[in-house]
């Protein structure tokens, strides 16, 4: 049937675009290496080894995979309701500090309970932090891209104040919180790397949200609001609260992202610890075109690039920034379209979907 073919073509369109962008990124990256006189085969071998060879390297890849996966999921979930949560970074800081606190002060709980409790509280902290821009957006149409970016700074500086002055490990010079109890820690799965059981929790969360979006009435309503808020309101959904709630869900994931770094990797909250995990998540979601099922693959691909880059630098001397350039090229081509949409929302001072 004619329309369904068109439908299928338009569905194919975006993966094709993304693949083309990835290829283009690889070509340009390779060309740059060649221009600088590096041996390309050697470089890619080193990249591959850096990402996969041995428990340490592969563990390092998995370690990077988790925050990419979760923050990508956070951004994509908000996008389902057509809200742009650029505030995952701030939400993960809040989640992390809350996780560090409850991971430390609660003593004597069985590990499973302690971990669950810490993740829950950290998620709540992220949700509350995301509720603010969600509420402003849904109620007064205050642009959420602006508010979330500003709230990121608030979160980073606020947690920085806490870790410097209120809740600092007195035995160490650098601003970090006391180390959490062992019961709050996630088990390592690939020593000597820091990969941990958090990966299973993260994958579980992805599965849960895919199910939520595709098989529940809540998911249906979120998508309806995202596609067409007028329609959603007209058929009787509470579009405003659905939008706010989705933002809070996204923040919940953001908070857990931060907590996972604390209880899975570091064991404490370190001032300014995030190397832009929240923003990497935007990249993941944009490349996955906000398709939740594509997010694990995209996150894994980027994790491979990131951890492979380190190996490549170490063994061939090719600066890892080159991989950064490759990433940038990919994003530029694959997500330019989506970025333009975001830009428009910022410059027009309003969101795509309106709620009444």
């Amino acid at each position, binding site marked *: 049937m004619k329309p369904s073919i*068109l439908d299928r073509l338009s569905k194919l369109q975006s993966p094709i675009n993304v693949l083309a962008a990835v290829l283009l990124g690889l070509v340009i990256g390779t060309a740059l290496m060649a221009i600088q006189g590096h041996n390309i085969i050697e470089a890619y071998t080193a990249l591959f080894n850096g990402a996969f060879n041995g428990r340490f390297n592969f563990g390092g890849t998995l370690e990077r995979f988790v925050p990419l996966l979760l923050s990508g999921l956070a951004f994509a979930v908000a996008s389902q309701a057509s809200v742009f949560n650029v505030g995952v970074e701030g939400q993960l800081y809040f989640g992390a500090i809350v996780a560090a606190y409850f991971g430390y002060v609660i003593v004597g709980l069985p590990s499973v309970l302690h971990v669950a409790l810490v993740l829950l509280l950290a998620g709540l902290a992220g949700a509350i932090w995301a509720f603010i821009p969600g509420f402003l957006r849904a109620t007064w149409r205050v642009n959420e891209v602006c508010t979330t970016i500003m709230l990121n700074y608030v979160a980073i500086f606020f947690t920085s104040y806490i870790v410097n002055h209120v809740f600092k490990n007195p035995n160490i010079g650098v601003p970090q919180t006391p180390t959490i109890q062992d019961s709050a820690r996630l088990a390592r799965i690939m020593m000597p790397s820091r990969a941990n059981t958090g990966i299973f929790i993260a994958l579980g969360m992805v599965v849960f949200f895919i199910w939520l979006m595709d*098989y*529940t*009435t809540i998911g*249906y309503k979120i998508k309806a609001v995202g596609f*067409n808020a007028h*329609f959603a309101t*007209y*058929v*009787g959904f509470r579009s405003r609260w659905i939008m706010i709630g989705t933002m809070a869900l996204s923040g919940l994931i953001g908070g857990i992202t931060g907590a996972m770094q604390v209880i899975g990797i570091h064991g404490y909250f370190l001032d300014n610890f995030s190397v832009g995990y929240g923003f990497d998540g935007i990249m993941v979601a944009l490349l996955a075109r906000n398709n939740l099922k594509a997010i694990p693959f995209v996150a894994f691909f980027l994790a491979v690039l990131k951890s492979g880059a380190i190996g490549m630098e170490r063994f061939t001397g090719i600066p890892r920034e080159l991989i950064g350039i490759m990433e940038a090229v990919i994003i530029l081509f694959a997500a330019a379209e989506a970025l333009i949409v975001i830009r428009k929302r910022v410059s027009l001072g309003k969101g795509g979907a309106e709620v009444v």
Partner: protein
Amino acid sequence: MEPLVKLSGIIKQFPNVVALKEVDFSLREGEVHSLVGENGAGKSTLMNVLYGVIQPDRGDIFIRGEKQHFHSARDAMNLGIGMVHQEFMLAPTMTVLENIILGFEPTKRSVLDYDLAYEQITELSREYGLAVRPESKIMDNSVGEAQRVEILKALYRGAEVLILDEPTAVLTPQETDELFRVIASLKQHGKTVIFISHKLQEVMEISDRITVMRDGKVQGTLDVADATKEKLAVLMVGREVFLNIKAASTKAGPVVLDVRGISARGRRKLSELTDVSFQVRAGEILGIAGVDGNGQSELVEALTGLGRVDQGEILISGTPITNLSPGQIRKKRVAHIPEDRNTSGLCKEMTIGENLIAITLDQPPLSKHGVIRSREVNELAAKLVKEYDIRPANHRIRTANLSGGNKQKVIVAREVSEDADLLIAAHPTRGVDIGSIEFIRSILLAQREQGKAILLVSADLEEIMSLSDRIAVMYEGKIMGIVPAAEANERVLGLMMAGATYDEATQGKGDEVIEA
């Protein structure tokens, strides 16, 4: 005699459809030639080809026997072809005069000669009986006035052939009569007129010849003497249609909708609701007639919770629903076919099935504890698609790909299958094909038979008169009166639509109201 205009073998393909499939069309000098056909038949496209704004993929245009290539409307204008589009193309903040002369300003020593322009326009307007106020701004003009401005604009540019694309769609019956007088006068002055419409009655009234289009093809051209409404309808639809399908009046039951003196702010001053009161009983259709923009949209929004009511009260079967949310009002068994199927009525990114379940999603059997039960959903969707003859008959197709009539059928199916007590239908057949119109109207009547209360808002008087038991006329946010269908006729309703009360309209005073 050589035709003035001859289009031959015109083919035009748009990305998704072939809008014109080898169309031949010829126009005699001095005639009024109607072009009829359902929405989407290709009428506008064909005329845009003649007017030079659309370039055909294939086919030739001959003017007085000479082959022409139009690169833009300017080329067509130079050969005396003018067109008034379905959507007016006027600058709202500029004056009538400025709009008319725009691009063709008369100059004296390269300075705009305002006095000359003024003179030319008053002259034209007198000659053809096109009353306008040259110095008023377009945005302060009524739709009828704006249309006259468009016609003047075309004449000012030297149009000998005037194409009017569905000019009556936006007019009251009286304004339509006035337009017909203008057309007669154009003809008297030797102009040639192409009149597009899908209202067969009026086409029969003013044409010399009638060309019928269906699905991108010309079905035939008839002299008006040989044409009947039935013949034209068969050509248009490809089969017989029954539009005036009123069932015998049943006994109306208890009051379902009770509107008591509501007032609400409007999008424009004229559409502000003031003290609107009426009732709709079970088993009756109350029609709301009126020219678009006289508060009908605001009324429907107030009733469905999409807009706020400032004063007054709305009751459904005795319980107040004033200012409740749309969701709460739906729970009081109110269904709503919205006036705008593209933004509100449907979610075009979702499939037919997903759209069909939007309002019953939370109830068993479609979901249980918030989990959607796909099998039940698919069963229901497939059943409704079949029952309401939605095409293509595949509920997994996104609604963005449907035609207007099928989109509307999806909405009607969803709202009617909900089994509500009150059905609010706003312009349920606007812009849909005749087949769907017939189908949707029969569904409304069937709902009435089942004892539903129905509020039917429509700007189409024929529809209102053929379906309603009683007819309320809205004008500038007020109800001018409620007339039993048996006592209503086009003249009385038309006068009321222009601001007369029922008494004034029936006592013949209404004509003065219009003059004033």
